[in-house]
């Protein structure tokens, strides 16, 4: 069975700082996807970034980038130049690539607060 672990329940940084959220996962699969989802106070789940396990290059989306270490099963999210609107719960998530209707397995989340 796959598991996703987020060891930082809460983090707080000053606006404009860079912050890194940690995530580790456990799987015996060789082909899978990893995600970071953002859940603001509105509770909607918003995809931040996605990484395919077969790609060595780390995914980036504007101020968001990941550090994907496949051998270590680590998938951290870096937010550069943090903004007040980045305040949210962040969930790391895993999905194996073996069927079209694969489920997503979420970590327990990190609550990120950006201070003005």
């Amino acid at each position, binding site marked *: 069975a796959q598991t996703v672990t987020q060891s930082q329940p809460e983090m707080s940084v000053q606006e404009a700082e860079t912050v890194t959220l940690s995530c580790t996962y456990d799987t015996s699969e060789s082909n899978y*996807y990893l*995600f970071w989802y953002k859940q603001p106070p*509105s*509770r*909607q*789940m*918003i*995809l931040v970034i*996605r990484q395919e396990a077969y790609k060595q290059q780390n995914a980036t989306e504007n101020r968001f980038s990941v550090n994907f270490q496949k051998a270590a099963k680590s998938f951290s999210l870096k937010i550069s130049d943090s903004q007040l609107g980045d305040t949210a719960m962040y*969930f790391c998530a895993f*999905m194996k*690539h073996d*069927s*079209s*209707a*694969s*489920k*997503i*397995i*979420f*970590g*327990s*989340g990190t609550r990120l607060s950006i201070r003005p």
Partner: protein
Amino acid sequence: EPEVTQTPSHQVTQMGQEVILRCVPISNHLYFYWYRQILGQKVEFLVSFYNNEISEKSEIFDDQFSVERPDGSNFTLKIRSTKLEDSAMYFCASSAEGALGGYTFGSGTRLTVV
């Protein structure tokens, strides 16, 4: 940008009552999902649905739960006899290419069982 629409946004029901949570997936999507998030806890998979049948369900998705796509546009989750522990946020999601293209989540229905 296309959205997954969920109604109602908040529903309060008495224990033992049946509830139906409604979702309108993105129109060209073929794969549908329900997830649940108990307050303060992680988001948990309930069920996936494709080609008018359940693809996979979790151990949470017991006999009191059912899903249906009654009219080609709506996707519903029915809870037959609600319990207090069913109180949670329920998220619907849909995708075009299974999980490969990524999911789009709805904004959720907050279910409160009293």
